[in-house]
């Protein structure tokens, strides 16, 4: 199966690919700052990202234009998804859902 450009971008993140995906999911419903992302990701995935991992993934996402920082008076800078980030997240989730559906279908017929 040929991968889209967006999928290649996320797969390119190495050990940061999973944290990057979780960050994109966390930002899917609006802008958040680092601390809020950590809390949200822990609530939705049961994983507490350390600051080293969180900002390693954030820096990669920002450098590739998948997220962007918003202006803030506070020292906690919020981030939001860009259009490219939204497309990348949608493509990745579609691909994961296809894998999940196939797995469930095979388990049911086993």
């Amino acid at each position, binding site marked *: 199966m040929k991968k889209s450009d967006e999928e290649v971008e996320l797969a390119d993140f190495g050990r940061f690919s999973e944290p990057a995906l979780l960050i994109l999911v966390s930002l899917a419903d609006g802008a958040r700052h*680092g*601390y809020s992302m950590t809390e949200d990701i822990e609530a939705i995935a049961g994983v507490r990202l350390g600051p*080293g991992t969180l900002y390693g993934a954030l820096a990669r996402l920002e450098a590739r234009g998948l997220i962007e920082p918003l202006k803030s008076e506070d020292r906690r800078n919020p981030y939001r998804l860009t259009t490219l980030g939204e497309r990348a997240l949608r493509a990745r989730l579609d691909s994961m859902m296809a894998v999940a559906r196939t797995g469930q279908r095979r388990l049911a017929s086993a």
Partner: protein
Amino acid sequence: MRWLLRLYPLRWRERYGEEFGAVLASQRASVGLVVDVIGGAIDAHLRPQFQPQGRNSDSNQCQREETMTLAMLQRCSAGGPKLSPSDRRIASRVTILSALGLAIASLVLTKIYRGAPPVQALIYASAPALSIVYGQTAYLRKRPRRTQAFVLGAGISGMYLFMLAVCLVANRL
């Protein structure tokens, strides 16, 4: 814990330092957290997500600081700062004399108190204590005497107390 931020490149700190510090401060200190931050710092040095903006004095200063931090990490991974032959010679002499002293003390105390836990602990703590003596003598040579005495005393006392606890527990088994 904010001192861990200094492991990151200056340019990285300028961009993310404030918010990173806020997230760091919100988390409970743990070994896992320290490992995560150090891992992130190594990644930031090895795979920087920023490209230099230009060859102005700021970027030169950034590069110098990054080189120094990388050199520091390399020294840490290689086992500490480079020792001069004189440092090594003095540290070796002190270690040999300490080994002789510990051996004599162990023999005399064993003769008097047999296998009492404090004597056992002294024997077991000897080897790690000697490595502490070597390390501290070599690396702290140019530090004030008070610092040397404190670090050496605390290191050896800590090691002895740990071994004493092990011996006391082992004797109850």
